[in-house]
């Protein structure tokens, strides 16, 4: 027993050395009165304890070690060293810790000890927070609120003997970890906010689960506090990011520690005294995920935003506006007010100031106009913000006499149309009832909407001055006067003008006659229209001409008139397009015609002026060989060449021609294509030949006729009578045995005539009975066959034909010799015979020349020589009944 006590004493002393005897002379007794609390909503463990009694002897700070353990296996979950200050009077300490694992999942134990330098006290007794047990699966924590983008742990506690089948988050199967015994956990990363109803978490069955809300802590900012009624404070802020938490979990607000009404979203109203000078205004925004404080410092007297004026009334008679204030405190405030006038969308804001302002008078309002007026005010001193706008009040101002009419004229022939522009709402100052046109002694009343008056006869002097006035219920306008010129305006040549931006920038030279400015009027050049005009003040010689009626591609004529004390004088003219467009009309009647071998005349009809949509600077002829369509050629034609152009140097081929108009905006008005097949020059050569031959034939015929008509003369000169040689039997030798006869030839002297004959052309006449009885053959080939002459007796047969009979022909040889014209047929050897025949007697019949009827030859019949012919006689016996004779 003694030994046991000794050993026990030694053991205790050794323990004390280890735990509490490190401090020299100090024994650390450890924390006192330790207690543990927990909050399952926040999964927080709170520990309170009192100071170690021995700590008063510790000169330096004391540290407490806190440990959280899983009770079942005493596994450390969390440990922390807590510094405590010695100066604390209460010596009572508090420490808390939030567990990631829901406290329901398993039991947790807490213990503490004190520590000084390397000396520690004993651990305090374990204080346990008991986990939940269940007969069926349960998921913890219940109805928690979790911040987006955080990890959160759920645990499932199964009943005794139950087995974990699954854990699901939002119907998604999750990984689980076994904590201990029947407790399992899963960690979920909260990626996105939950819907207004929470997200389900199941364990084993949809019947066993919990629900979690996922959202954000408050994100409000920009707190501003002010007063509206001088009796309360009204703070506004921006809510920032939505928390996605609703109902009981939505953000709650406190202003300076006082709760704002439920369902407060972005403003909080509290009754306060506003005369407390500058003070802080603190807004606390709180939801299950966090707390936020916003601050503003303000003197509410300098933060007054007035309420909207009430019962705003406006009068059109004196154009005054009255209103009331809901708060009587406003009646002593020096305020500035905005009066906003809305007139047909045009807004005019006017400022007024005064103490407790409740009425203003508006000046400069247009007559007979409808205005809507609204009022808002603010403090003039310490202006903070404009208050709220009042409700709008609408009123109409009274009518006034109309403004002067803008009058002009349009002269066409003997007719003059007096025109005036209808007054706008702002000019008419009321409803126009009628117009009064005074012309000489005539007065005409016209009613709207008519705004012109036709004067058809202006021959009288007094008719040149026309006065027009407009009348409404307030009276008549000042008269507008226009003087019609007695003579028509001298025509002026127009200059081209180019439009820009839908109008014309017009400028002109100053007119010496202009005393009251200029009038520019315009109309489409090629259309009937009602003229439009604009008046330009004196001294200005340019104007921007703009009109809603301007159309692109339409040519306008702009006339500039000088305003004179008398009638307006036409000063200058312009023609132009607001915007030129590609020609829409088509070039018509394109034709191509070949001239010569390499020239083509192209002709067309230009686009008529009324169809022109741009100024035409020229025409372009496109042509190409149809067999080589790519070989397009271009030929420019100026507008001076009136619709025709010769193209030279064009090789013979087939061509396609097209003509386009050239404008400043491009080419257009394409004509329909024309094709031309050029012909070669040989055809014309043939034509020339044919014509020449025809001409020659005609000439020949003419000569023939002339010869025929003068046949006698021609015959006398060309074909004198030739005596027929006489053939006698006695000139022949007697018939020989072989049947031949020989001509007796006696040498004789040629006559002088024969000497004249060209010996060289002399032939030889051979009488060859074999070749033909009695035939005289001319052997000289140089003698034309036509000159073979048959002297035969011409007798008229019963059939009417003449026949020559050599027997009756007798011509004295001397006479033959006396002829000038040679007959080569007889300048042959026969020449001797002829001489011989002279003795026989030559008896030419001169009467034969009196019937140079060509038909004679046609009806001649050849009578061959008869062997019994005795002589050569040329007889021409024409009976009286012969038609030739006649």
């Amino acid at each position, binding site marked *: 027993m003694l030994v046991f006590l000794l050993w026990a004493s030694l053991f205790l002393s050794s323990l004390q050395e280890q735990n509490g005897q490190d401090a020299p002379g100090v024994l650390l007794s450890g924390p006192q009165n330790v207690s543990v609390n927990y909050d399952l909503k926040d999964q927080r463990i709170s520990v309170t304890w009192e100071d170690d009694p021995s700590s008063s002897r510790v000169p330096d700070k004391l540290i407490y070690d806190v440990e959280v353990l899983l009770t079942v296996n005493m596994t450390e979950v969390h440990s922390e060293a807590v510094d405590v200050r010695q100066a604390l009077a209460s010596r009572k300490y508090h420490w808390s810790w939030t567990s990631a694992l829901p406290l329901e999942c398993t039991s947790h134990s807490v213990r503490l000890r004190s520590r000084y330098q390397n000396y520690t006290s004993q651990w305090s007794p374990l204080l346990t927070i008991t986990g939940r047990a269940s007969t069926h699966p349960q998921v913890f924590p*219940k*109805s928690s609120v979790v911040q987006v983008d955080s990890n959160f742990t759920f645990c499932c506690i199964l009943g005794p003997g139950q087995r974990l089948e699954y854990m699901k988050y939002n119907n998604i199967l999750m990984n689980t970890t076994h904590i201990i015994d029947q407790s399992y956990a899963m960690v979920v990363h909260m990626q996105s906010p939950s819907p207004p109803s929470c997200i*389900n978490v199941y364990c084993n069955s949809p019947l066993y689960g919990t629900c979690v809300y996922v959202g954000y802590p408050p994100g409000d900012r920009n707190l501003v506090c002010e007063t509206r009624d001088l009796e309360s404070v009204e703070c506004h802020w921006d809510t920032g990011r939505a928390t996605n938490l*609703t*109902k009981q979990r939505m953000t709650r607000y406190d202003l300076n520690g006082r709760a704002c009404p439920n369902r407060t979203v972005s403003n909080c109203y509290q009754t306060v005294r506003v005369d407390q000078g500058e003070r802080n205004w603190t807004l606390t925004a709180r939801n299950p995920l966090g707390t936020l404080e916003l601050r503003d410092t303000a003197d509410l007297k300098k933060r007054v935003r007035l309420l909207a004026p009430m019962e705003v009334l406006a009068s059109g008679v004196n154009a005054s506006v009255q209103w009331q204030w809901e708060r009587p405190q406003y009646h002593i405030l020096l305020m500035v007010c905005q009066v906003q006038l809305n007139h047909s969308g045009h807004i005019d804001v006017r400022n007024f100031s005064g103490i407790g302002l409740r009425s203003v008078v508006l000046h400069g309002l247009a007559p007979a106009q409808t205005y809507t007026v609204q009022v808002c005010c603010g403090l003039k001193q310490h202006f903070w913000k404009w208050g709220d706008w009042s409700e709008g009040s609408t009123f109409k101002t009274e009518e006034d006499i109309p403004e002067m009419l803008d009058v002009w004229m349009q002269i066409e022939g003997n007719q003059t149309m007096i025109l005036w522009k209808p007054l706008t709402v702002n000019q008419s100052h009321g409803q126009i009832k009628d117009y009064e046109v005074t012309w000489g002694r005539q007065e005409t009343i016209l009613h709207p909407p008519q705004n012109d008056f036709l004067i058809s006869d202006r021959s009288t002097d007094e008719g040149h001055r026309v006065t027009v006035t407009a009348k409404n219920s307030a009276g008549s306008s000042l008269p507008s006067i226009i003087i019609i010129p007695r003579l028509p305006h001298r025509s002026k040549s127009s200059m081209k003008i180019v439009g820009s931006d839908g109008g014309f920038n017009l400028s002109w030279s100053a007119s010496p006659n202009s005393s009251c400015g200029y009038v520019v009027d315009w109309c489409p050049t090629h259309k009937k229209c009602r003229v439009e005009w604009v008046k330009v003040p004196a001294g200005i010689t340019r104007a921007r001409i703009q009109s809603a009626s301007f159309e692109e591609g339409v040519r306008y004529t702009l006339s500039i008139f000088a305003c004179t004390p008398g009638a307006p004088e036409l000063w200058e003219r312009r023609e132009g397009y607001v915007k030129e467009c590609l020609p829409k009309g088509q070039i018509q009647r394109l034709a191509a015609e070949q001239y010569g071998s390499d020239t083509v005349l192209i002709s067309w009809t230009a686009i008529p002026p009324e169809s022109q949509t741009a100024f035409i600077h020229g025409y372009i002829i496109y042509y190409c060989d149809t067999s080589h369509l790519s070989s397009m050629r271009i030929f420019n034609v100026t507008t001076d060449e009136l619709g025709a152009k010769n193209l030279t140097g064009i090789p013979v081929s087939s061509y396609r021609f097209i003509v386009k108009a050239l404008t400043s905006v491009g080419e257009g008005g394409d004509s329909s294509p024309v094709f031309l097949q050029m012909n070669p020059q040989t055809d014309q050569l043939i034509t020339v030949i044919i014509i020449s031959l025809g001409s020659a034939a005609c000439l020949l015929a003419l000569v023939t006729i002339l010869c025929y008509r003068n046949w006698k003369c021609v015959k006398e000169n060309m074909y004198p009578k030739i005596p027929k040689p006489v053939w006698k039997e006695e000139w022949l030798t007697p018939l020989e045995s072989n049947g031949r006869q020989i001509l007796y030839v006696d040498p004789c002297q040629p006559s002088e005539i024969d000497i004249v004959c060209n010996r060289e052309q002399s032939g030889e006449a051979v009488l060859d009975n074999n070749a033909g009885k009695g035939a005289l053959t001319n052997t000289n080939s140089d003698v034309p066959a036509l000159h073979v002459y048959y002297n035969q007796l011409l007798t008229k047969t019963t059939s009417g034909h003449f026949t020559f009979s050599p027997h009756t022909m007798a011509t004295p040889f001397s006479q033959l010799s006396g002829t000038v014209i040679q007959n080569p047929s007889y300048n042959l050897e026969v020449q001797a015979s002829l001489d011989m025949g002279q003795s026989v007697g030559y008896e030419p019949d001169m009467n034969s020349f009196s019937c140079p009827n060509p038909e004679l030859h046609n009806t001649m019949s050849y009578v061959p020589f008869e062997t019994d012919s005795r002589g050569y006689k040329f007889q021409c016996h024409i009976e009286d009944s012969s038609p030739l004779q006649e």
Partner: protein
Amino acid sequence: MAGTRTRRVAGSEQSRTARAAALAEELHHECTLLLELYRKKETFAEELTVGGERLVTVPPLSSQLSPNDRLWRLYSALQQCRNLLERAIGLEEGVGNGGDRAQYESQRKTVRDRLGHLLASTRLLLEDRAGTAAFTPDPKNTETASPVNGSPFALKLWIYRIFSELEHWTLTTSRTLKALHPDGATPKESRTRGRPRGRRTRR
């Protein structure tokens, strides 16, 4: 004459029974749809089936019971359903709504209105048989324990059980009323007037 009058009343009752049966059938269809919409809205798993203790407590409808007693029990069950539905609608505001809220709320209103019509029809049938004295006192639903302080999940599940009870009892009502109706079919206009039967009775 008295017999004739009795038969006319019986004919009118038959038509009322048929109409109530048709109404119950239609309501059952609406309840099925409402349950499905709620399940989707609260992302409950499709395999969710509630069983165990019923929220509506009435004695069993045995075939030995008289038609009048069966009607009484149906009427009582439907009354409890309506009370539960009203309570669910009130509590649901605290849970928060999400998903196809508009369609769900419209369907919930439809069920609520038709349940009222069915109760009124059933009451008329009971009056035909037992008179108005039978309703003193009016059958009241005992306070059903609800998870007022429970978790949102428990509340959602409880509402789901209420809709399941609605589906169950409207189906039971439809079947019972069809069984009470001689033809056991949906009434037609000519039948509801009861003219052919009346003539046959006179012969």
